[in-house]
């Protein structure tokens, strides 16, 4: 990688790890400005360290010679000079070796500034520890940026995906009105208004999501009776369950043992409502959906809320590779609220040990006696 003035550019046989896959190596059409700057940096680090060192050593040597009272043989003077030059050269080479990794980091940072988060620098095999530490810290930063960027893109894609279906409904109905497929009456218009409200709610969910992402969503925790809350959710959805022909009920194991839990009741209510509605949607007529509240199996310091159904559920093979949010999506449903639950209720959101069950694990601040 290092080069003196002049001569043809020399490249390593393999590209550096941060080199983009879709760019040719060695680069065609001459070196880029970035590459040029990198090499100049390395060259100058060596060069600027060589000369001062050389002069310093030479001065020291000549002072020493004078110190011997002028009885210094000429041949020895030459040898001393050469030794000084050699030492200065060796130091310069070492400095250039250190400058290489630093220059790599500079180039890679330049790439990151241009939103290429796949860049990684090579950790130097020798040289002072701080250079290696810097390289490692840089790589950790790049990984973190890459994962954040990926999450953001996925979120945007998911949101766009979820807006498409309600939009298609509005577009289809409007075209139907224009094309005379549907009569232009108040009932139709009312329906369209409701459709735009659905879109509005989705956009509202999106806002919740983005505040959740930035960590700005405030939770107001208060002692909450989980069993009462579960009953509340179930009764609000009972009409829906009835029309779907699905049995819906709450099951608790000894409710007296479950103390109030400090949690944001509004958020938990949203999450539960959503999970139950989702379960109802995926349970065939004649099936059942159960909201179970109980202490965690084998542990006494948490309470779990289960939503179980005998519908399609999340397939077991979906679970290992997808996070909870994606699994629910694969099931055909979307809710930012579920995502918010996982991120923000500050609870473990167990995507279930069994395919047809979603478990919310609520930690108790004081363990059960």
């Amino acid at each position, binding site marked *: 990688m290092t080069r003196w003035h002049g001569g043809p550019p020399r490249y390593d046989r393999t590209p550096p790890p941060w080199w983009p896959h879709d760019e040719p190596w060695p680069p065609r059409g001459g070196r880029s400005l970035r590459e040029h700057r990198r090499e100049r940096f390395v060259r100058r680090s060596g060069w600027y360290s060589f000369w001062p060192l050389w002069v310093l050593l030479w001065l020291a040597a000549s002072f020493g010679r004078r110190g011997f009272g002028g009885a210094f043989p000429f041949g020895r003077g030459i040898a001393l000079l050469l030794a000084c030059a050699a030492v200065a050269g060796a130091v310069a080479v070492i400095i250039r070796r250190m400058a290489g990794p630093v220059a790599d980091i500079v180039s890679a940072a330049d790439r990151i500034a241009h939103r290429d988060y796949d860049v990684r620098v090579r950790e130097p095999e020798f040289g002072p520890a701080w250079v290696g530490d810097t390289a490692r810290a840089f790589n950790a930063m790049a990984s973190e940026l890459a994962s954040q960027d990926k999450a953001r893109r996925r979120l945007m894609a998911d949101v766009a995906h979820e807006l*498409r*279906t309600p*939009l*298609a409904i509005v577009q*289809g109905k409007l075209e139907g009105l224009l094309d005379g497929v549907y009569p232009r009456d108040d009932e139709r218009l009312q329906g369209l208004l409701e459709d735009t409200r659905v879109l509005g709610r989705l956009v509202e969910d999106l806002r919740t999501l983005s505040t959740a992402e930035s960590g700005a969503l405030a939770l107001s925790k208060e002692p909450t009776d989980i069993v009462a809350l579960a009953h509340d959710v179930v009764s609000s959805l009972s009409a829906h369950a009835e029309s779907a022909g699905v049995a819906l009920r709450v099951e608790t194991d000894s409710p007296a043992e479950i103390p109030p839990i400090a949690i944001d009741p509004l958020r938990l209510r949203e999450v539960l409502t959503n999970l139950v509605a989702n379960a109802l949607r995926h349970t065939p007529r004649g099936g059942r959906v159960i909201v179970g509240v109980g202490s965690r199996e084998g542990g006494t310091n948490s309470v779990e809320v289960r939503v179980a159904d005998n519908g*399609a559920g999340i397939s077991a093979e979906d679970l290992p590779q997808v996070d909870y949010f994606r699994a629910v999506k*694969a099931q055909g449903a979307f809710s930012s609220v579920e995502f918010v639950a996982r991120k923000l209720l500050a609870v473990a959101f167990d995507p279930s040990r069994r395919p047809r069950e979603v478990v919310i694990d609520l930690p108790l601040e004081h363990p059960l006696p």
Partner: protein
Amino acid sequence: MPTVLVVDDEPQIATIARDYLSRAGFSVAVATDGTSGLEMARESRPDLVVLDLGLPHLDGLAVARALRRESDVPIIMLTARVDEADRLAGFDVGADDYITKPFSPRELVARVASVLRRSRHAPAAGARFDVADLSIDVAKMRVERRGSLIDLTATEFQLLTALARYPGRVFTRGQLLDAVRGMEVESFERAIDAHVKNVRRKLERDPHRPRYVLTVYGIGYKFAES
């Protein structure tokens, strides 16, 4: 009257599709999940299936795969999944067309009609067929354009035949690789590009502006619809 089966878990989308298609003179059946969609397709043997990808119980891709194993009923994917990878997966399981939501129901009707027309005109695995101004003789491995013979290698011939049998239908590189027998199994999918280039060089008047074998960006190739 051709029958169309619409499989979509969103009842409103299914209703809109049904209303438009029946107004255009199709007989329409609706299923709201994958399992019942597959059952209905088996029972009523529709002329075409409009299939959503994100279905409860049985995913749309699985339905398409199952349908393809049993019949060559034309399938139009109607879906909110717009990523190139999803489109590729859709075409790979043998979809004939891919419409993304939000969509214009008028366009859906037009696509349904076009795919039906294509499938009806698709020649059976016959020995000879004409397409555009080409005449392809499968048995003799000869391609003629207005009487003059075009000299193709066996691989190029198979590639052209696979595409030309279904004008307008999109083929992924993987599907074309399957269609071209005799190519090394481990051939890279991009090898298809090289063969297409050769076919174009021999077939097209201007290989840079092809009229027969068209590129579908990000997916693969198709033969131009007349």
